[in-house]
């Protein structure tokens, strides 16, 4: 009875997936509409894409978002990996419970609360020390704080399942603890580092609420620009922009998925060969 799925279930599944994709498909359709009115089909046109290339506001915001995203994901992978090592390798230290709490809290904390409290901190800091001025820097600081949590949790689970015997062997052969870790365990957790880097990048690129709260005049990320345009009503160039973003991200996810599946298959083959 393994592969017998009732037609009713199949129908629900297909309808569910269709419902997930229908709005996106419709939006992609609108992006090629020559008419600016959504209710009228004015024929096929790529004019909204051409207009997008000349929209400096959107291009600048996209560049800023990417720069912030790369710094944030790199910074939070470093901090999150350190936190994961601390939590897995050091079972007892002062502040361990505090660290566990601070790593898990951002996952249940509504973004708007995190954002408002961080803004209040930045305002007070600026008042007291004259630093930091609100803008890209405060966005980066705030993003690293919540991305670190996701990195820690991803890397922690990988680190827990990583075999320590190789590292111990390296130490017995004379490697220092740091050298042994870098040579043996780091390659084992590298996939987790890569995927948490990508996850942080996605979270940072997508964040609207915290960015809008902690940013100052002059620093507008892509979601902030999109949000202010969308709030005013329909804007056909946003359809084009959304189509580009969705296709790009979709291609990346499918590409990464295929690569990972191939690597997994290769690993399985290798272990089978080794066992023979």
């Amino acid at each position, binding site marked *: 009875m393994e592969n017998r799925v009732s037609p009713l279930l199949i129908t629900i599944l297909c309808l569910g*997936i269709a419902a997930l994709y229908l709005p996106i498909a419709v939006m992609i359709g609108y992006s090629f509409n020559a008419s600016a009115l959504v209710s009228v089909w004015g024929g096929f046109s790529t004019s909204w894409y051409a207009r997008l290339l000349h929209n400096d506001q959107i291009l600048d915001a996209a560049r800023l978002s990417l720069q912030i995203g790369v710094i944030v994901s790199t910074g939070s992978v470093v901090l999150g990996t350190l936190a994961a090592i601390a939590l897995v390798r050091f079972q007892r230290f002062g502040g361990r419970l505090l660290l566990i709490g601070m790593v*898990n809290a951002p996952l249940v904390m509504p*973004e708007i609360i995190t954002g408002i409290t*961080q803004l209040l901190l930045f*305002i007070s800091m600026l008042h007291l020390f004259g630093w930091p001025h609100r803008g890209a820097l405060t966005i980066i600081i705030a993003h690293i704080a919540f991305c670190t949590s996701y990195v*820690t949790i991803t890397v922690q689970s990988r680190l827990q399942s990583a075999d320590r015997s190789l590292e111990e062997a390296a130490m017995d052969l004379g490697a220092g603890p740091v050298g042994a870790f870098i040579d043996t365990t780091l390659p084992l957790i590298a996939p987790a580092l890569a995927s948490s880097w990508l996850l942080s990048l996605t979270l940072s690129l997508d964040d609207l609420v915290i960015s809008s709260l902690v940013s100052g005049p002059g620093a507008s990320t892509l979601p902030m620009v999109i949000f202010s345009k969308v709030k005013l009503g329909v804007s056909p160039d946003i359809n084009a922009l959304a189509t580009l973003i969705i296709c790009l991200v979709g291609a990346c996810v499918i590409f990464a998925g295929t690569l990972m599946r191939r690597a997994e298959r290769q690993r399985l083959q290798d272990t089978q060969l080794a066992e023979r």
Partner: protein
Amino acid sequence: MTSTAAPDESRAEGRCAGSPAVIWLVRHGKWLIILPPLLYLFVFFLIPFAFALKISFADMALRVPPFTDILTAGPDSHIRLTLNLDNYKYLFHDEIYGLSYLYSLRTAFFSTVICLLLGYPMAYAIARTSKSTQSLLLLVIILPFWTSFLLRVYALEGIIRDNGLLNSALLWLGIVHQPLRIMGTTLAVYLGIIYSYLPFMVLPLFATLEKLDHNLLEAAADLGSPPWRAFVDITLPLSVPGVIAGSMLVFIPAIGEFVIPTLLGGQNNLMIGRVLWDEFFGNRDWPVAAAVSIAFLIFLVGPIALYQHYSGKQLES
């Protein structure tokens, strides 16, 4: 010095003995690993709540930053602490906060239930397909999660607005003669939350249903139990962890949601995230906004965190 780390450290010390700096580094090196994330999160995640607490006891003031100091130096150079409880009293007097608290709870709760009712059959169907189909279907479900949340909410607007696809179709079919007004209603907020968070429900449900031992179901069938009975007695109880995990993943972000009520729910939507934003940017009353944040923390985030803590402990034992 810890018991687990001690053997490694003494071994390392034995090798690098000599330079006192190296010995110091080996003995205290673990703090080089622990301190950066600990300090960072302490300063930029925990301290902000202390500031919010402080500001929630302050008064609104026409200056930069727009609130009074609660610590002031008195004339006799004693530091004086002035706690202003008006902001908290205001929360209980102005009924918008009570209403929006209940409205947010109700909206998040019913969205979670509907996500569960839709997501369960989807996850069940995926779990019943072959392995290769499974990974394809999972990719299809996850893909929207990786694309921008904001853009997906915007895309949904294209379906449900007055001249959107849904109304065009209904008008064309002659089912309605006037476009349905969905935008700006509570229904739109429900649709937005369900559309955005459905994948979060399907994935953990699939993870538990996939591990389900089919032998149990076959045994039940062999013993003459009808399929629905086997489902109620075996599948449903065994999938409870997935149900709870999925419900948490939908309920927690839904309750503080800001984008969906703002874009789909209209100007007067009562979701707490939107009300808080208005207090902050519209009225620029930061002390009240800080008080709302603290109350939010106590009445919503606190119970959820406690629940997760204790259910986690129960699972461990």
